[in-house]
């Protein structure tokens, strides 16, 4: 243990020396280069994903484009170029930090750990963590999961909550941590788990993709709420203000409702699936009173 | 002891043994010689069926070895074979090289096998090398170990395929000496070799093979001094010419 600590200390010193500070603000950088770099995901349906394999689309992406419009106006650069940069859950934070990506809008939860690394815009979405199960499973809420196999996606808040719940309430669940949401659903569909715990929006997304969507249902009292936000570099108040203002304006004008229904209650590309996920009270609240705080800070 | 009845062997289209008839009696020492590629190795390897034959029969000690029902492993355990390139097991010590088959094939107990191995090593003059590995021995020493390995199975017959031709000249003598002692102890031996000194001194009979046929068989003295066949004469001339 002592050895590990000493090794780690050495690494800290090395990295502190190696890390140069970002001198200028994002707006200056965009102005100089004439380019804004947008971070996006490949499969966070319907938030940010590649429908045709090339350009991103989605709910978060539409809000991201609102910000681009505002930046153009602010910098008086109508011909500002947009460059896209695909990020994954592992790369999104470092790529924002090291200046590769200027703004990431996808399905990134705003939380305290991440606030140490990056800044978040006002919230763009709010999810509750719930359960997807078959209509015949008899599972209505979390207490029904006692002694059952439950799947969740590795590395998510749901996984942590589920494990904590299992330990605290001695529920005797077997918790399967699948690689991604698609695989979690496969575990559910193939009978290895009776329920799949995840962000409700994502559960609706998986349900829409199922062979027989009518066989499945999203249920259970949300165990936590999470607010998604766009990520930008820390300590850049000028850029953050442009981002926040653009999103708030979209909320205020009511345009958000159009964007919401486009992605959550209408067919979405590429397959024309409809998530049928009505806007939750929590999201309505967030739209009414935008905040850049994480759910745990509320 | 060994009898070849009209033995034929083909490698694909190549007719290597063309109707060989030969008999080696109990206690006899027969030397086989002939030009390179004439089929000597093939002939001697058919005795313990390291090479199969296509026609004819071979009998060893009253057993038809070419009968598919014959238990070849049992037969081979009774027939010692010494190779041109020794073929010792490089991963085993000298002692283990000798004791391996008595223990595994005959089920001999380890202590007895080692005692016997040391006896044999004494006979070939290598008891002090029992813990060495093959790579640590000279060629002549390796071949003497190989002979001891063959003898450890207490064979009824010993076969030698050019046992000295891979050796440096100064080591040939020590191997031939061991073979001579063996012959004098009454072992039945079939030896492919061009060592005429050995043939003269030890062999009861010399068999001359050419193009897969036995061309001449005779007592060594008469074969070397008065060969009958032209090809045998030519062969002997070449053998006697230095730098052949």
């Amino acid at each position, binding site marked *: 243990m002592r050895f590990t600590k000493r090794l*780690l200390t050495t690494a800290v010193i090395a990295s502190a020396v190696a890390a140069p500070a970002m001198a200028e603000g994002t707006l200056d950088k965009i102005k100089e280069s004439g380019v804004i770099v947008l971070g996006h995901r490949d499969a966070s349906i319907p938030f940010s994903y590649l429908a045709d394999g090339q350009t991103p689309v989605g709910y978060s992406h539409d809000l991201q484009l609102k910000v681009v419009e505002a930046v153009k106006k602010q910098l008086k650069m109508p011909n500002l170029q947009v460059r896209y940069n695909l990020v994954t859950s592992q790369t999104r934070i470092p790529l924002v930090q090291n200046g590769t990506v200027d703004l990431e809008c996808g399905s990134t939860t705003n939380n305290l750990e991440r606030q140490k690394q990056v800044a978040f815009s006002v919230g763009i979405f709010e999810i509750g963590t719930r359960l997807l199960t078959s209509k015949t499973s008899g599972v209505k809420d979390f207490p029904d999961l006692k002694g059952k196999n439950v799947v969740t996606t590795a590395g998510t808040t749901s996984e942590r909550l589920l494990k904590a719940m299992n330990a605290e309430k001695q529920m005797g669940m077997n918790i399967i941590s699948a*690689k991604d949401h698609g695989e979690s659903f496969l575990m559910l569909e193939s009978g290895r788990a009776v329920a799949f715990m995840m962000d409700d929006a994502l559960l609706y997304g998986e349900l829409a993709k199922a062979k027989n969507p009518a066989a499945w249902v999203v249920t259970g009292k949300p165990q936590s709420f999470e607010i998604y936000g766009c990520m930008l570099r820390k300590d850049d108040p000028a850029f953050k203000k442009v981002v926040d203002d653009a999103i708030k304006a979209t909320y205020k004008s009511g345009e958000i409702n159009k964007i919401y229904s486009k992605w959550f209650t209408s067919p979405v590309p590429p397959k024309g699936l409809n998530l049928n996920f009505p806007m939750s009270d929590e999201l309505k609240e967030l739209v009414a009173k935008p905040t850049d705080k994480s759910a745990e800070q509320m | 002891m060994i009898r070849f009845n009209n033995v034929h062997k083909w490698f694909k289209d190549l007719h290597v043994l063309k109707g060989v008839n030969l008999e080696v009696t109990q206690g006899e020492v027969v030397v086989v010689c002939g030009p390179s590629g004439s089929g000597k190795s093939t002939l001697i390897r058919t005795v313990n069926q390291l090479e199969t034959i296509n026609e004819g029969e071979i009998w060893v000690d009253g057993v038809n070895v070419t009968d598919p029902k014959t238990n070849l492993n049992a037969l081979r355990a009774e027939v010692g074979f010494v190779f041109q390139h020794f073929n010792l097991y490089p991963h085993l010590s000298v002692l283990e090289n000798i004791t391996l088959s008595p223990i595994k094939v005959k089920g001999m107990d380890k202590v007895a096998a080692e005692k016997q191995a040391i006896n044999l090593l004494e006979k070939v003059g290598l008891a002090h090398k029992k813990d060495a590995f093959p790579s640590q021995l000279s060629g002549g020493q390796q071949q003497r170990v190989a002979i001891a390995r063959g003898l450890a199975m207490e064979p009824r017959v010993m076969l030698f395929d050019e046992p000295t031709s891979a050796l440096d000249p100064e080591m040939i003598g020590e191997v031939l000496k061991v073979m001579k002692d063996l012959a004098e102890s009454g072992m039945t031996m079939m030896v492919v070799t061009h060592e005429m000194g050995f043939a003269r001194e030890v062999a009861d009979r010399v068999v001359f093979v050419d193009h897969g046929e036995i061309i001449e068989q005779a007592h060594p003295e008469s074969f070397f001094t008065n060969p009958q066949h032209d090809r045998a004469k030519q062969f002997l001339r070449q053998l006697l010419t230095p730098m052949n």
Partner: protein
Amino acid sequence: MNYNWDWNVFFKSTGIGSEIYLDWFISGLGWTIAVALVAWIVALIIGSILGVMRTLPNKAAASFAAGYVELFRNVPLLVQLFVWYFLVPDYLPEQTQIWFKQELAPTTSAYISVVVCLALFTAARVCEQVRTGIQALPKGQSAAALAVGFNQAQMYRHVLLPQAFRIIIPPLTSEFLNIFKNSSVASLIGLMELLAQTKQTAEFTANMFEAFTLATIIYFVLNMSLMGLMSWVERKVRVPGMMGGAK
């Protein structure tokens, strides 16, 4: 880059019971070793049998082994894992299926699948090494073994394989290291081995560089120990004058 380094992160609570993040790494390492070692032992046994089969005069045995190698070497490992975990259980008898999918703890069924998958995949690679090793031996070795009356099994057991294995220790060492690397596929079916725990820690703490640095150090130390182990084995079985076998 304005990254916030925090090496104390490993000693922070995960929020689950009294666990700290370091515990995740330890348990991940445990699973990595448990998967790789068991799969390796099975792969060595099956691979050796197949390698021997490839060198047998029996045509049917040789072509069975050759077909096996083609199949298992050419289908991507991930595909094989999905076959073993999702597809094969669906063809089991009803009772066994329920047992495997529902009664068995999910980690256990994932563990079985990944060990089977890695073992069979690696067996194909071991097979080729063993075959090469046997074929590199001088022809005289098998002749010498047969001439003293060994049957085929004894010949392989006492003469050919001990030599072949000595020759192929270096390539086997690299297969041994590979199986540890490949064991990270386990995370795809929910078995939280080292890489999965690393990603998970990175995800939860947002301290991804610390997490991946620690993982790199652990993998490095693991690799060095495995190499040390194999060179110890090599020294143990070394025979004078038999480096690289054939002379």
